[in-house]
């Protein structure tokens, strides 16, 4: 019951942030996807056994840790892409402003 509750609480938090416009659509869908994966893996014995079998993990509960690590890696990559994209846009804007100001100085 608590396992379900934790996942749903996180889901609610994500939805709350989305409707308050603190999270954009892409990030929200990504987080929901990850939460869904975690929900399935943490609540279904079959899924855990299946994962342990695929990953070759002898101690079955460890497979859930590997899923968590995988999800964290994915999140890190997504955040890195988002940050780089934002940085690139900022630089483009900064470049434009600088060019405009320099050109104005030149034409004086």
């Amino acid at each position, binding site marked *: 019951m608590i396992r379900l509750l934790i996942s749903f609480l996180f889901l609610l938090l994500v939805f709350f942030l989305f409707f308050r416009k603190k999270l954009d659509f892409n990030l929200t869908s990504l987080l929901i996807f990850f939460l869904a994966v975690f929900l399935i893996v943490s609540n279904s014995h079959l899924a855990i056994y299946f994962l342990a079998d695929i990953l070759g993990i002898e101690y079955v509960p460890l497979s859930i840790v590997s899923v968590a690590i995988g999800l964290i890696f994915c999140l890190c990559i997504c955040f890195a892409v988002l940050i780089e994209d934002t940085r*690139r846009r900022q*630089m*483009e804007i*900064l*470049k434009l402003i*600088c*060019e405009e*100001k*320099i*050109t104005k*100085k*030149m*034409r*004086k």
Partner: protein
Amino acid sequence: MDLNFGKTYLKNLKQTSMETLVFIPSFNDQLSLDPLVDEIISNYKRTCVLIIDDGSEQMLKIKCRSKRVIVFRVPINVGLGVTTSIALDVAMKNNFKYFFRLDADGQHPVKYIKTLKERIVSSKTNICIGVRYNHERFNSFRGVISAVLKRHLRFVANWLSSATLNDWNTGFFGLDRIGIVKMSQFSYSRYPEVEFYLRAHNIGLNFSTISIYQKERDSGKSSIDLLQSIMLLSRSYLIFLRFLLEKKS
């Protein structure tokens, strides 16, 4: 229909009275800049000097009051790549025919600007690079490491691009109008030299080189320490990888 055609034409006519843009990126180089700027302004006519202060700790102050000197301060340190991109865009939009970049620490003698320009004109090349024949120093541990890294990068870059450039890390180069237009289309990273020359080679710009003597630094010290040189090496390898991928596609 362009209703402002007359105005635009007059503006462009005014702009073309300056044909050369000398770009000096600066980061905490206050002491060496004044003599450098004075020398350029007194020796080169129809030349505009653009100094971009890349977020120095103290704001740059240039004594020269000529209208041909433009000092611009970027409020934060954005790196050499972004400032080079800004300068190239300015050169492109203001119809400069030639673009030269030299370091603010006084290591590149000003007299070579003329040689670079003459070389670009005589050999009809788009980019001319000032290759430093004395930049490797083996008198300290740091110098030896730096020389080994540079030689390694040079070997790999020449091997990949089938170019025969002896100095891939020089910041002294000149571009003609075609070079300005083509190179201004790209963005560059923090230490952009290798990326810049590989890009120029990749898009088919004609290369030429001149040998230059690199002077001692007038002031300050290199901003590249051991950690940054390792980062630079790894970044260079990523650039090589991208170059290969672009070449294949």
